[in-house]
């Protein structure tokens, strides 16, 4: 477990944004705490002047009028911390933010990729220094011990089992306790962790609360403390580092294929296929590019994965922006699903497989929401009965089998070829109130009706109140008519509301056009 602390985080952030102006002035960040303006963060120069975080701004100004005071920007701090956390993904996928100014990295099993813990730490430190951050970091067996060592102890790499020796001399604040608890412990003369480590447990708990011993147990490794990574951990990951940064699209795609081949082996071993794949490209300057692609069916083939990312890269060619190049690439399977073996041989002349690939390619290029399949729903309301869903989402049973059975059992009036996404109101005149219209006006054209079929009564979904707002026709019962006008245009019209239900003062029935027949 690696704990990274950026003790001058806020001031370093501001310095990074500035050119080397206002060189001499000590920099402090001030913000409101309660009703008072206090110092939130200070830099080295300010500390040497005797200032400290938490001091009132007025007092600091009185002591040293020549201060460079910058207002606090917690949002920018958070954003930068997130960006650094993203950047740390190059070391391990398990990165957690330790707000406001630290990070926790689970590097177990990852350090050897850099040649060992010391090399990893050296690499991390070098890059942080280059970026202009002061840092302290420590490695230990538990989160608590690493944190304590980074903040209050001697930053180093400690082995498992050294927690006790490491913690004993440190002040109690290093246990990440609430300040009131530390203060009340101090009042009874307990200053260091060593003071409480062997004390009887029950009196401690009774007097200072359960949090104290829990934090102690966690730091000592007696109790497990889980790390909550910022990003969900991908079940399959393959990554590659480059000595020379790469920038060309072909190189990126070549890398994708190599990584995909490694993923394919791992996926095959567990009988899985990828449903969502993410490519993370680490730019040399620390920026990150994440490109994700979804698939319609579990996918294992490296060439197919490459084709998928070729489509994605083609759509964002300008946004890829390699800068000075990428020095690391990681391909992760975000969502994996069991894939039966027969689906894998997509190279064979298998029409279903071909279709799936086409859907994947189009979805990658245009967006999954734009490539859709028609599905049948169990509803009597026309606009709900047949809707479209993203083709990558639809499952085998899209409801048409059930729909066909239903249609053959019940003689239903024909359905239009094209349906307007929202019924459009029309002005219509009917001979008798409940009959079909004689003529209607839609989109500024007048249609004289020569024939009409209907009505087909479709009751509203009276059990769903929210539908009333969702559709302009409201939730009323509808009488559908198939009509043909003089020149042969065929429409699907309906009257929302029934005259028999009309109450004085209520909304009178109104006419809508909902679709067109071929």
């Amino acid at each position, binding site marked *: 477990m690696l704990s990274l602390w950026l003790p001058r985080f806020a001031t370093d952030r501001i310095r990074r944004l500035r050119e080397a102006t206002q060189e001499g002035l000590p920099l402090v960040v001030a913000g409101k705490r309660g009703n008072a303006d206090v110092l939130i963060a200070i830099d080295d120069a300010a500390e040497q002047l005797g200032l400290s975080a938490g001091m009132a701004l007025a007092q600091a100004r009185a002591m040293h009028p020549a201060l460079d005071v910058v207002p606090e920007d917690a949002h920018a701090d958070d954003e930068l911390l997130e960006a650094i956390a993203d950047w740390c993904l190059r070391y391990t996928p398990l990165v957690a933010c330790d707000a406001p100014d630290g990070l926790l990295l689970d590097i177990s099993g990852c350090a050897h990729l850099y040649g060992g813990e010391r090399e990893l730490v050296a690499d991390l430190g070098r890059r942080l220094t280059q970026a202009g951050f002061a840092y302290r970091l420590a490695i230990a067996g538990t989160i608590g011990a690493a944190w304590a060592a980074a903040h209050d102890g001697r930053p180093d790499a400690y082995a498992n089992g050294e927690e006790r020796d490491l913690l004993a001399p440190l002040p109690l604040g290093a246990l990440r306790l609430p300040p009131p608890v530390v203060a009340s412990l101090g009042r009874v003369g307990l200053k260091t962790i060593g003071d409480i480590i062997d004390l009887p447990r029950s009196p401690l708990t009774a007097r200072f609360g359960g949090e104290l011993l829990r934090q102690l147990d966690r730091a000592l490794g007696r109790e497990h403390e889980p790390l909550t990574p910022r990003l969900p951990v991908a079940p399959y990951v393959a990554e590659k580092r480059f000595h020379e940064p790469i920038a060309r699209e072909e190189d990126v795609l070549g890398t994708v294929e190599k990584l995909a081949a490694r993923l394919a082996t791992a996926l095959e071993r567990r009988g899985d296929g990828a449903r969502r794949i993410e490519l993370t490209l680490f730019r040399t300057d620390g920026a990150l590019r994440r490109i994700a692609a979804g698939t319609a069916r579990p996918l294992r083939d490296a060439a197919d994965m490459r084709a998928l990312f070729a489509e994605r890269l083609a759509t964002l060619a300008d946004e890829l922006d390699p800068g000075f190049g990428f020095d690391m690439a990681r391909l992760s399977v975000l969502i994996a699903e069991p894939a039966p073996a027969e689906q894998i041989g997509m190279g064979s002349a298998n029409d279903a497989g071909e279709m799936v690939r086409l859907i994947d390619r189009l979805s990658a290029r245009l967006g999954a929401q734009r490539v859709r399949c028609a599905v049948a729903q169990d509803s009597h309301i026309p606009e709900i009965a047949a809707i479209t869903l993203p083709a990558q989402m639809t499952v085998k049973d899209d409801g048409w089998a059930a729909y066909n059975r239903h249609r053959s059992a019940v003689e239903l009036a024909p359905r239009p070829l094209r349906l307007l996404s929202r019924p459009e109101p029309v002005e219509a005149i009917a001979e008798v109130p409940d009959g079909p219209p004689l003529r209607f006006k839609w989109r500024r*054209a007048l249609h004289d009706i020569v024939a009409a079929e209907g009505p087909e009564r479709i009751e509203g979904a009276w059990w769903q109140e929210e539908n009333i707002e969702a559709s302009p026709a409201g939730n009323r019962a509808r009488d559908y008519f198939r009509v043909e006008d003089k*020149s042969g245009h065929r429409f699907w019209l309906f009257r929302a509301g029934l005259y028999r239900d009309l109450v004085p003062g209520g909304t009178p029935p109104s006419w809508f056009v909902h679709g067109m027949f071929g």
Partner: protein
Amino acid sequence: MMLDALRQQLTHLQKPAGLAEGPVMLPLGVTAVDDALGGGVLRGALHEIAAAGEAHLPAATGFTLGLAALATSNKHLVWIAEDMALTESGVPYGAGLKAFGLSPERFVIVAVAHRHELMAAMEEALRCRAVGAVLGEVRDGALDAVAVRRLSLAAGDSGALAFLLRAQPPHDASTAATRWTVQTAPSVIPGQREFGGPRFAVHLTRNRRGPSASWILEWRNPDDGFVLAAHAEPVAAPLRHRSHQKVA
């Protein structure tokens, strides 16, 4: 007779790669139309179908789907449309597709924001072996001639049917094998108030393999397909017989 046989031979000699298997022509079952087309709708080629005006678009859609059904008995139909077309003219309704002999299970609809995306997506879909017909719906404006030519070539490679469905009759030149203008025609016999099947007044305005002509066709049902509507008069006189274009 002799000429017909030679024509058939020529057709077979000029087969594009995608037509190696299966029939070259998909007959509509209406003798008059099939004769004019030289046997039926040419597979592996681009066909342009335009509505006579915005209001006739549903009819043009129906006619196009009737043709597409010829090639999609066990293959997919991919319908690619610009966002605007779907908002203005309505989205294809799964339950209504069945009336034209298409199965909604093998139907994919793709919405695109730009014309160039539409062309690229059509080309991509045409190259897929599982696709029997690709329908691209464009509203108005000129098409990129190069992109249209690429569509023709892609269709030739795969043997699929490619359709461009346009809301207005186009004025540009085209490399399409056929070009049609479709108007809706009354299905109701004057004086009666009963529905017949959907009727289309179709004008074959460009035909690389024969003369141009006009018919009124009626779509009966998925089994019977199109029939020549007997009682109606042609809405326009057939265009001049262009014998020089008769040979493909």
